[in-house]
């Protein structure tokens, strides 16, 4: 059977900034790590004490070799505990479980130019892109948006050199997205990672300028919470409360339901479930607009409910 999980040991952990922690990981048994293409992520299983079940968080690989995986994790302000665990508990020597790398954010091989637009910690997949694109001598332009106190950190991570097409901007207003997207040569692919509002703005602006959807790529991680609601499983009759700070998928897992999942960010489609009754609040990027409007399917990793009770065919 194909190996799906890895045991990883923390080799090195350091703070890049008060809220940014870099982890270097190796296989706990010293074996070679599976290869990971630029843009790939792994999902860590984090035994957070407050929750009955461990939390699973996905992080982009900043770098990946046969010996090491490297991650950068931001301590989230509204955290369910996962990023706090990474910051407070994972010291060198600690061993954690992770999935093998998956890639939902691959580089387009046909692109004539790669335009990278990241906000904050959205820099992580871009760092793996940059190494790969530099090695290929590909044409690349990067725009990193950063809070005032982190401009220096990101400049350091990117290793800025004059004339290399990399730019760090302080705050959203410092980047004119419409102008940037309007002057891109034919054959450019744009990749964006960061807050949903930034990625939506890139996507909307690109569409308005006539970019085809095939040339616009985004990486979605992390679901924002919302109002609590109740899940009812039509076959077993089981009722599960989904609280405001957890996802539907986590609630299902907590209740011991064997739910499939992969990216846990609304991108891959693996966790899709049929809806019997109730109106989903769709937050994924997998279902088409028509499928969302039909209300027959839901992606429990990010989507929620617009009603008090959502009934699933489970």
């Amino acid at each position: 059977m194909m190996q799906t999980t890895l045991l990883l040991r923390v080799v090195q952990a350091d703070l890049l900034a008060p809220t940014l922690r870099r982890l270097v990981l190796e296989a706990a048994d010293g074996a070679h790590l599976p290869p990971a293409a630029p843009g790939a992520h792994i999902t860590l299983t984090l035994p957070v004490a407050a929750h009955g079940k461990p939390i699973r968080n996905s992080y982009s690989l900043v770098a990946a070799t046969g010996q090491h995986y490297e991650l950068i994790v931001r301590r989230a302000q509204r955290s369910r505990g996962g990023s706090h665990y990474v910051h407070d508990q994972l010291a060198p020597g600690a061993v954690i479980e992770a999935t093998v790398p998956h890639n939902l954010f691959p580089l387009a091989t046909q692109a004539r130019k790669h335009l990278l637009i990241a906000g904050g910690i959205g820099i992580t997949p871009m760092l793996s892109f940059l190494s790969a694109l530099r090695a290929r001598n590909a044409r690349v332009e990067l725009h990193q948006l950063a809070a005032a106190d982190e401009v220096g950190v990101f400049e350091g991570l990117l290793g800025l050199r004059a004339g290399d097409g990399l730019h760090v901007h302080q705050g959203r207003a410092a980047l004119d997205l419409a102008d940037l997207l309007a002057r891109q040569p034919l054959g450019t692919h744009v990749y964006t990672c960061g807050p949903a509002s930034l990625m939506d703005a890139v996507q909307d602006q690109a569409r308005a300028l006539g970019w085809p959807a095939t040339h616009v790529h985004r990486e979605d991680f992390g679901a924002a919470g919302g109002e609590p609601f109740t899940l009812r499983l039509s076959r077993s009759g089981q009722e599960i409360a989904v609280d405001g700070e957890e996802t539907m998928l986590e609630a299902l897992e907590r209740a011991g339901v064997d739910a499939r999942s992969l990216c846990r960010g609304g991108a891959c489609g693996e966790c899709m479930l049929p809806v019997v009754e109730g109106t989903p609040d769709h937050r994924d990027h997998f279902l088409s607009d028509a499928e969302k409007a039909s209300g027959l399917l839901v992606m429990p990793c990010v989507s929620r409910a617009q009603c008090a009770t959502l009934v699933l065919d489970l």
Partner: protein
Amino acid sequence: MSDQGIKSRPTYAPISRDATGARHLLVLDTTQPPAGAFAEGTALEDFPERWSVEAHSKAIPSPHADDLLHGFRSTSHLLIALRHRLAQEHMGFRLYAIGTESFLWDVARAAAEAGMGRDEYRLLAAGSAARRVYCVHCRTMNEQVTTNLVTCSACGANLFVRDHFSRFHNAYMGVQIDAEVPGETLPIEELYP
């Protein structure tokens, strides 16, 4: 020995203007598009910028880059100018081509080399259905083939013209018809006038 159902054979739809595009260029391998070239509700005037092939030694494209209408001596002439244009274009551009299949896929190759995706250009076959046939045995292109069988101009093999179209070679594949049983062949028919 029927080739029906080979999926690599391209299919085409009448041209309509892609409303999501910001700039549009129509290229033709003739001077006028044939009847039925455009989808309902679309007309030649929807493409103010048009490049056509006049197939005449006196044809000279306008030296003014801002002019919207240009006439070229040949498709080769047009394709060279098109490559220059694509190299200077920006995202939001849409390309449309109407003409014989070999012209269309020459245009498609220029578009792909410029990094355009399949959603950024539209093609419609019009005019002669004659095929460019690639001899899979000696790799020679045989032009203007209108029949189901053709003798390869280089190696003399009696080729059956398959519906198998290679976008890479911009040609239909020709395979020796009696390779299995020497002498076993088909009556010649004019299928691609």
